[in-house]
């Protein structure tokens, strides 16, 4: 029965239609900003093509680039760790903190640490983590996961955030002014930045040639945390590598225009060496990525640069909300990444799409997202994660449609039923009929009409 899960949560979300409209329009507005920004760059499609090829090349030579990156980063004075899975990743971080008697850490946005459930893990070991990106801080205070990878609290209205800040940061009750709420977060988090000895960041791009990595933010929160701390820990999936520094020219042109329609994030920080007297550690994490790399149909999903353009354009995401996916990464890209982690849990996600294909068109690295959704559907059925009732129905349908005789009988029966016994179909057991009328029944099928009217071909 897994296939119904996204549908059930989406149905919940759709109970408040005004909110669905608001969510849809907010995200559509971002899609429009993305369109304006990309349409302004005449070489946009060339950028996508070339970036896609660079990523294809990198994945085909990842074994080499990982080692080149490690060598160059170590020469820069950076410590490299390798983590095969989430547990190892979390333990490396715990050890680094415990060795330094650190019990509080500030963290900027990192979907990888969400994937590894780092905050909960460290919390269980007595270490407090504060998320410093405003949106992430908001969902952290609300004890919710992010619903979007770039706009973590896009599902929340400002009044709800005002309520949350009133409770946690002491802002005046009933105040929902974004300016005022942001200022309150600024004051509160500034104090956090100034008192934390450890800072964790994600990694947007890592450069094999130089051993450096790039972190992109608009708020400056990653840098505020890092530069004030004694130790900077950067968590990165092994797929974040690109070969050369000059390749950043393409990726930084694509990333933010695709994400929010900005020409570039406010800060694109290039970390090559630790600052004097400070430590820099990079954790290279596999956690299923090498397995995905070994699936020819799905390896291109590893090209993702986490821009979220596919979220914003997806008509299903916009009308079902990020939490309906019940996955670390929601949206179309999440629906092709998540089954690799846990096929049973996420068997519903490749079906949460009409295969409209808009996701693949906005993808800055040209991942064939909607084709992969189609392919995951096949895999999920083959692996036995589909609803058995659906399987039986499909077998009957396939048999009927393969036989012209059975097809004619079934077609006639369907039309007869609709005409003479509509109550069999027009009831609330039929999901079509809940909000949609059935088509009117024609006098005859086209096949029947043709037999009467085009005798020569009979």
């Amino acid at each position: 029965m897994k296939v119904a899960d996204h549908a059930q949560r989406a149905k919940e979300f759709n109970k408040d239609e005004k909110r669905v409209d608001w969510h849809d329009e907010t995200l559509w507005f971002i899609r429009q900003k993305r369109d304006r920004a990309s349409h302004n760059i005449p070489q946009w499609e060339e950028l996508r093509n070339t970036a896609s090829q660079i990523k294809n090349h990198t994945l085909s030579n990842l074994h080499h680039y990982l080692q080149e990156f490690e060598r160059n980063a170590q020469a820069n004075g950076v410590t490299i760790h390798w983590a095969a899975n989430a547990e190892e990743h979390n333990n490396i971080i715990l050890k680094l903190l415990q060795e330094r008697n650190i019990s509080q850490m500030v963290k900027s946005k990192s979907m990888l640490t969400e994937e590894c459930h780092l905050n909960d893990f460290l919390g269980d070991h007595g270490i407090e983590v504060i998320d410093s990106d405003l949106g992430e801080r908001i969902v952290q205070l609300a004890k919710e996961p992010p619903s979007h990878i770039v706009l973590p609290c896009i599902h929340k209205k400002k009044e709800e955030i005002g309520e949350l800040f009133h409770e946690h940061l002491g802002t005046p009750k009933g105040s929902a002014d974004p300016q005022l709420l942001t200022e309150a977060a600024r004051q509160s988090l500034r104090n956090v930045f100034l008192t934390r000895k450890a800072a964790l960041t994600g990694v947007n791009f890592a450069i094999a040639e130089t051993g450096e990595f790039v972190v992109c933010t608009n708020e400056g929160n990653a840098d505020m945390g890092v530069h004030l701390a004694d130790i900077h820990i950067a968590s990165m999936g092994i797929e974040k590598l690109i070969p050369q520094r000059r390749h950043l020219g393409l990726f930084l042109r694509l990333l933010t225009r695709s994400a929010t329609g900005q020409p570039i994030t406010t800060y694109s920080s290039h970390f090559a060496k630790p600052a004097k007297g400070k430590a820099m550690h990079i954790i290279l994490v596999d956690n299923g990525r090498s397995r995905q790399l070994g699936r020819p149909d799905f390896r291109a999903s590893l090209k993702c640069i986490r821009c979220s353009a596919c979220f914003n354009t997806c008509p299903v995401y916009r009308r079902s909300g990020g939490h309906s996916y019940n996955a670390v990464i929601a949206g179309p890209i999440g629906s092709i990444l998540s089954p690799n982690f846990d096929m049973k849990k996420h068997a519903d996600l490749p079906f949460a799409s009409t295969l409209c294909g808009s996701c693949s068109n906005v993808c800055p690295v040209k991942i064939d997202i909607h084709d992969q959704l189609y392919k995951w559907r096949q895999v999920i059925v083959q692996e036995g994660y589909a609803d058995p009732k659906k399987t039986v129905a499909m077998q009957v349908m396939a048999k009927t449609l393969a036989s012209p005789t059975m097809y004619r009988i079934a077609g006639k029966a369907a039309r007869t039923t609709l005409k003479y016994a509509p109550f069999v179909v027009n009831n609330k057991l039929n999901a079509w009929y809940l909000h949609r009328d059935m088509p009117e029944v024609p006098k005859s099928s086209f096949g029947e009409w043709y037999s009467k009217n085009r005798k020569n071909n009979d």
Partner: protein
Amino acid sequence: MTSKEQILAAVKASQPDLKELPSLDFFYQDNLNQDEDLAQFIETVEFIGAKTYRVNSYEEIIAQLQQDFDLKGKRVISPLNEFSTIAEKYTGADNHTLADAELIILPTHFAVAENGACWIDDHLFDERLMLFIPQHLAFVLKKEEVVPTMHRAYERIAGKSYGYGAFVAGPSKTADIEQSLVLGAHGPRSLRVFII
């Protein structure tokens, strides 16, 4: 088997046959025009929330800053000697002492017309936090130091050795609350770019 060996072995077994690295030549077929690039830079950086000023001297910059800010009793910091009349130099060992910086003035290497970003790396300043901690930030940019695109930008720094460098485009900002743009998220509330 260490995790490193394990990961590398898995990657090697999984990666497809080598695919070619594409050429980037296409992106260098641009016409360089200093005046146009500068004009585009100004338009773009103002659009993303910065202020720009065309100036002929550092005195003009100082006068403008004094006009824009009430700097009395406020901490102003710059590594540039030209600002010694209004700014101190930061030479400390503990950057937490920068928490009360009101205004920091920094030089930049060059700017990018297409996105309004300025590149600065630690050849020009030695405390990374200075880009982020002040309430207000000002950059000095030489007017001939504007490149049209990010491709040209990386051409400038392709072989450069630095410990840290950043493209900075406008003031710190967020739109996390209902997509309402707010300047001054965690970093500087404003950015001025003085084009000299």
